[in-house]
């Protein structure tokens, strides 16, 4: 065979498809996007018994070729585009052996579009436990496809499956669904005009809710005019088709089922559901899990975060001491390395969060969260499924926004995307920490609570309420004819598969580092250039002035360097920009130095601390927050003669950072996900305006 064997994995959600994918490929995976859209395409490579390599694509879970969500539409188009070079040579339909009917529905559709198919009958161990027994030989005969029993948890059947992949080259010739007599003529005409090689495939092109994007403009025109001529519309024969297919499947199951399941094996699920979806305990448990996640993000992640921080600080130090002095070394040591460090520092938090989310999803609990939260979320124009993105938003808005794709209603998905950045992400933590330490006394209230901790929690709640509040406003403003519905499987509870959890953590973390990394890195370089350079005569003059003052005060060498840096910053391009916006931010209680930090924070919030460090000339000791804190405490406001960071200014900054949309990476992702600049711009303007107004009110009230 020329080239690699291309294999696609399809199956219902919860069929264990991803476990099987992980079994086949291990960590040998990559994530790319489908061309033109941002639906993630997971591919991996698998070594076959004959020494060849197969390329395996794991497609998002789906119930039928008739798509409901964006994810499903991409899969449908992927499978229908037979002329593409990506078109799979073999499709593995993964079906849950304990729940076979719906899996077979999808299988019969894929058989009918003329792709070679292998059925992986997964979760055989559970089926055996439940007492289910099938005559696999007969099933194979009746379906006309290879049936391989597998257990993706243990790897059972994976080798046999690989063998079967090498042997399956031809599609089954006998379609399951007999097309309605009324459409035979239009299907024939389409096949003559476009050369589509199979009746059902042609029929699918006509019946897809959106005309497939891979067709050429001429072909789209043909499809459009045929639909008109024959009065076809999506869904016209869909119900009849489903009934016919299920008729076939029921007939088949009647013949191959040796023993049926009783419901005894789901007893634990029913019992657990009685507690986990209980009127009171259900919410208490969910709240407890949220608190646990919170606690771990804050306390367990701090230690590795500090290590990473120290590591990058010493790397940067090492570079500046050991490389020949010059602008390139400075760029590397002061711009690029701290920039990368700023991204990598968030990896522990993101990894922990996704460990939790992945465990909750794997165990089946997440479906229950959607179930108990749906009614509440709907009041705010959201959907039960919005809970996952909002939770992920506490670590980082980027993966959170990517996870909105499973929301099938466009309006609800859009609202979720727009409000998710209000959730306090981990990039706000360093900003909050230092400002709270500055303005809130370390006191204990009511005997147990730490006042600083309470303030931090208050800010998170504020972000959450801003999210659902604006969701409610958006619900009133946005018009949509599309219906919202919820048809969600509640799968039996299962032990999470740790292998899958590990791979999810790895995958999400990697995509965060890449996605956010590109932008944060670029911005930190730009920021570094702007703050290091200025009109050369003024920069020189600043240095002279610093040297003069230093000589007078008899400062040590490193203190002199700090002073030079501080004076030069004022004259740099960044300093000039900061001065230019000072009039706008003065009512909020900020000066030009804070202005620079605000501007750079629009690239990414966490840059605030680093910028403050540079501005208050701490130089090499920039990573010690205590040092920054004491410098900030000593900063004098020349207008009042008192400290710059009063309670009013600090509070005003805290509110600004709670609400403002300060993350280029998120805006870029929102643009890609909504395919329009309208939404990210609206988000930017709305969130910034809210930030400005609340900061203004707070400062004016308390100052």
């Amino acid at each position: 065979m020329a080239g690699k064997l291309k294999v696609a994995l399809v199956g219902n959600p919860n069929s264990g498809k991803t476990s099987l994918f992980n079994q086949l490929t291990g960590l040998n995976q990559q994530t790319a996007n489908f061309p033109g859209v941002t639906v993630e395409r997971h591919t991996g490579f698998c070594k076959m018994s004959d020494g060849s390599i197969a390329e395996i694509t794991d497609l998002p879970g789906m119930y039928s070729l008739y798509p409901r969500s964006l994810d499903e539409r991409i899969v449908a188009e992927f499978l229908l585009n037979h002329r593409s070079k990506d078109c799979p040579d073999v499709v593995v339909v993964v079906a849950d052996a304990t729940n076979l009917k719906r899996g077979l529905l999808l299988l019969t559709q894929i058989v009918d579009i003329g792709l070679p198919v292998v059925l992986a009958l997964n979760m055989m161990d559970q089926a055996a436990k439940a007492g289910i027994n099938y005559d696999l030989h007969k099933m194979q005969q009746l379906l006309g496809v290879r049936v391989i029993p597998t257990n993706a948890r243990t790897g059972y059947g994976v080798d046999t499956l690989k063998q079967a992949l090498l042997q399956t080259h031809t599609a089954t010739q006998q379609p399951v669904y007999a097309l309605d007599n009324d459409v035979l003529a239009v299907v024939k005409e389409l096949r003559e005009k476009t050369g589509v090689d199979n009746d059902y495939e042609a029929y699918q092109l006509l019946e897809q809710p959106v005309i497939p994007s891979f067709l050429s403009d001429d072909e789209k025109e043909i499809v459009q005019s045929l639909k008109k001529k024959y009065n076809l519309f999506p869904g016209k024969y869909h119900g009849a088709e489903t009934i016919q297919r299920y008729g076939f499947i029921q007939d088949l199951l009647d013949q191959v089922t040796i023993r049926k399941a009783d419901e005894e094996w789901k007893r634990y699920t029913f019992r657990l559901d009685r507690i986990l979806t209980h009127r009171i305990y259900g919410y208490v448990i969910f709240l407890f899990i949220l608190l646990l996640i919170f606690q771990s993000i804050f306390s367990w992640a701090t230690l590795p975060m500090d290590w990473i921080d120290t590591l990058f600080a010493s790397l940067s130090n090492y570079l500046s001491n050991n490389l020949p002095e010059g602008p390139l070394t400075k760029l590397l040591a002061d711009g690029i390395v701290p920039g990368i460090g700023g991204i990598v520092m968030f990896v522990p938090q993101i990894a922990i969060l996704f460990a939790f989310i992945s465990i909750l999803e794997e165990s089946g609990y997440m479906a229950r969260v959607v179930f108990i939260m749906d009614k509440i979320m709907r009041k705010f124009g959201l959907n039960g499924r919005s809970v996952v993105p909002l939770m992920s938003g506490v670590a980082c808005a980027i993966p959170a926004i990517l996870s909105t794709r499973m929301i099938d209603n466009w309006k609800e998905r859009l609202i979720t995307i727009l409000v998710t950045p209000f959730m306090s992400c981990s990039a706000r933590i360093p900003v909050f920490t230092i400002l709270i330490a500055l303005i809130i006394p370390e006191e204990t209230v009511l005997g147990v609570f730490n006042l600083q901790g309470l303030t931090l929690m208050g800010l998170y709640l504020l972000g959450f309420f801003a999210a659902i509040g604006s969701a409610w406003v958006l619900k009133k403003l946005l018009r949509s004819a599309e219906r919202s519905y919820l048809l969600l499987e509640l799968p039996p509870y299962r032990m999470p598969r740790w292998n899958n959890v590990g791979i999810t953590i790895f995958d999400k973390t990697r995509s965060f580092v890449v996605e956010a990394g590109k932008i944060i890195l670029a911005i930190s370089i730009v920021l570094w250039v702007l703050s290091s350079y200025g009109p050369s005569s003024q920069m020189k003059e600043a240095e002279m002035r610093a040297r003069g003052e230093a000589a007078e005060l008899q400062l040590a060498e490193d203190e002199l360097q700090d002073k030079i840096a501080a004076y030069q910053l004022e004259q740099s391009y960044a300093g000039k920009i900061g001065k230019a916006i000072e009039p706008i931010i003065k009512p909020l209680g900020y000066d030009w130095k804070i202005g620079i930090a605000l501007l750079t924070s629009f690239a990414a919030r966490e840059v605030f601390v680093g910028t403050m460090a540079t501005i208050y000339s701490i130089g090499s000791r920039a990573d010690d927050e205590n040092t920054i804190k004491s410098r900030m405490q000593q900063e004098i406001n020349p207008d009042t003669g008192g400290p710059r960071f009063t309670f009013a200014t600090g509070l005003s900054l805290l509110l600004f950072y709670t609400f403002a949309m300060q993350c280029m990476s998120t805006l870029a992702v929102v643009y890609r996900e909504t395919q329009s600049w309208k939404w990210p711009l609206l988000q930017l303007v709305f969130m910034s305006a809210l930030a400005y107004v609340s900061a203004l009110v707070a400062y004016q009230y308390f100052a």
Partner: protein
Amino acid sequence: MVRTLTDLKPGEQGIISGFSDDQLSVKLMEMGCLPGTTVRYNFSAPLGDPICISVAGYELSLRLEEAATIFIIL
């Protein structure tokens, strides 16, 4: 009297006899809610909506307004 899925009480079963919403019925049928199939109402979410039913050998949750489009006979 015409009954819908919402008339069932927890633990009660019925047989699907039809749908009142064409658009939704297609999706429901794909999920295994075919006419002639037995459904059991299991329980509702804490706020009464959505609900959980057993159909075609698995557990499905759906909102009350969707359940109301499914006709059943007891």
